[in-house]
């Protein structure tokens, strides 16, 4: 098969997001407007929004979460662009990673010069059981869900298979959560802007204030092993192995590469894009890897002409802690079976050789599912331009990657970004 390439280059010249979290007073429209405003302010040389020619919005299930379908034209209207072709993209939790790709393809085709891509999700209107049911529709509702499987259950089955093959343990997964909460504590947009240690201290203070028995955790790992503080959701996945239920929106502006300098002092070039699909979990020959992620990654690396070792930072889809470990292997950062060791040894921390999820990842930043893919792009935008504040990586980030998974890997979109100045 011939190497795939874009017919013309595409650059990212603006990115922004709402805070991720639980916002009872805000609808998706409000959140999207917040994201759009921040994106607009991030365009170095200013943006006249009327130049936006088309809009692609990732959104998993506003229908079930909010009782509102047909969300893309609504978002266009709420930012004053009601007449622009606005298309909703649905690929479960990969919806906005795929919306990004649609925007790239639309510019590369030559049809448009400026495209807005975004993601939205408003999940906290529903009680947890109904959120679980809604997320479950991203699985196979005829052959997976009737067994009583949940999304934590699917990833738990991946974790069980991974532990049996490679010798990882639940502690390996806990280390991922600890690291992502460390990062998220430095991210003002994160749902959990606190380390595990801070959350422990808060609980201890609360117990003290209320005259309740004082918890006796020796350290963070003891806290994470406590069945009351960190209950098992689907063994071996505990509460702190799972990303939260979140509201949020994110937006990014794409332009044809030759226009980038008229918008941005430091444009970010999108040099690789890959996307692949896969069957339900039970039809896969191997649960310790996500084949669609491997394929999408290979496509993106090939298009970009770079190798995994060249990538300075990556935002990967850690909907569950095991998913981050598998992702780092699927993307070629570590050999199969080595990802859990890297997580335990701190290689993936901000000070490590291979920083992963400097934003806090979905685990700590939050996972408003349809917005998560563009949420990753926002972190890459800040890190590559040196605007990530307290969590800015020490080394120059000139090459970065995002990895956005839908379901248990029925969809995956991978993108590679380059800063040239």
């Amino acid at each position, binding site marked *: 098969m011939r190497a795939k390439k874009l017919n013309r280059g595409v650059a990212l010249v603006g990115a922004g997001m709402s805070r991720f979290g639980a916002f009872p007073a805000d609808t998706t429209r409000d959140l999207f407007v917040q994201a759009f405003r921040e994106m607009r302010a991030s365009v170095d040389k200013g943006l006249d929004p009327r130049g936006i020619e088309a809009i692609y919005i990732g959104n998993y299930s506003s229908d079930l979460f909010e009782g509102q379908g047909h969300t893309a034209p609504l978002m266009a209207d709420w930012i004053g662009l009601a007449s622009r072709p606005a298309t909703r993209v649905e690929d479960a939790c990969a919806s906005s990673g795929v919306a990004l790709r649609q925007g790239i393809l639309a510019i590369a085709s030559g049809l448009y010069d400026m495209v807005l891509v975004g993601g939205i999700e408003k999940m906290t209107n529903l009680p947890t059981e109904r959120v679980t049911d809604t997320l479950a529709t991203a699985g196979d509702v005829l052959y997976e869900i009737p067994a009583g499987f949940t999304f*934590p259950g699917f990833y738990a089955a991946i974790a069980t298979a991974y532990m049996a093959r490679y010798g990882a343990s639940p502690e390996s997964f806990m280390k991922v959560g600890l690291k992502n909460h460390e990062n998220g504590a430095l991210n003002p947009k994160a749902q959990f802007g606190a380390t595990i240690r801070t959350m422990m201290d808060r609980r201890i203070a609360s117990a003290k204030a209320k005259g309740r028995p004082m918890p006796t955790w020796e350290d963070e790992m003891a806290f994470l092993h406590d069945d009351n503080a960190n209950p098992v959701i689907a*063994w071996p996945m505990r509460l702190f192995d799972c990303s939260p239920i979140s509201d949020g929106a994110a937006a990014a502006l794409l332009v044809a590469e030759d226009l980038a300098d008229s918008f941005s002092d430091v444009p970010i070039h999108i040099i690789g894009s890959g996307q692949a699909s896969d069957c*339900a979990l039970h039809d896969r020959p191997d649960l310790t890897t996500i084949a669609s992620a491997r394929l999408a990654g290979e496509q993106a690396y090939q298009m970009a002409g770079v190798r995994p070792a060249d990538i300075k930072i990556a935002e990967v889809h850690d909907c569950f802690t095991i998913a981050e470990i598998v992702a780092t292997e699927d993307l070629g950062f570590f050999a199969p079976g080595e990802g859990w060791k890297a997580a335990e040894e701190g290689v993936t921390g901000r000070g490590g050789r291979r920083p992963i999820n400097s934003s806090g990842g979905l685990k700590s930043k939050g996972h408003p599912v349809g917005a998560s893919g563009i949420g990753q792009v926002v972190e890459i935008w800040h890190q590559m331009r040196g605007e990530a504040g307290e969590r800015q990586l020490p080394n120059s980030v000139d090459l970065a990657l995002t990895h956005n998974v839908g379901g248990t890997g029925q969809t995956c979109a991978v993108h590679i970004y380059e800063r040239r100045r």
Partner: protein
Amino acid sequence: MELTRHWRLHNQRYSLVGEQCDRCGARLFPPRDVCPECAEPAQELFTFSGRGQVYSYSTVYSAPEGYQEYAPYSVALVQLEEGPMVTAQLTDLGDDKPEIGMPVEMVTRRLRADGDQGVIVYGYKFRKHVKDII
């Protein structure tokens, strides 16, 4: 889920009826009329033995609506002896813990409690192979 959809799935749910590909011989479950191996039509019915082994599993503590009365319960990907893998709940485990490689066999059980639409859904679950219990 609608009553008609449950009725349509009756053969698969109660009897583990799948399909076989005329061309490459692959056995399919769930049946889908097109072979995932060679993309040719595969419509010849094939009834699976219902025997297999646990490929991977989890124990669900936080259960969705309709399943809470069973929690905690174990769910598994069961590799059937004819090849395909099915997603199913494990049942009748007693004090046994599920294990990768555990031999299991299909039984018919109630899958979920009476939901909003008053439909009680029956279908396959898997229990430890009975030979090992006796």
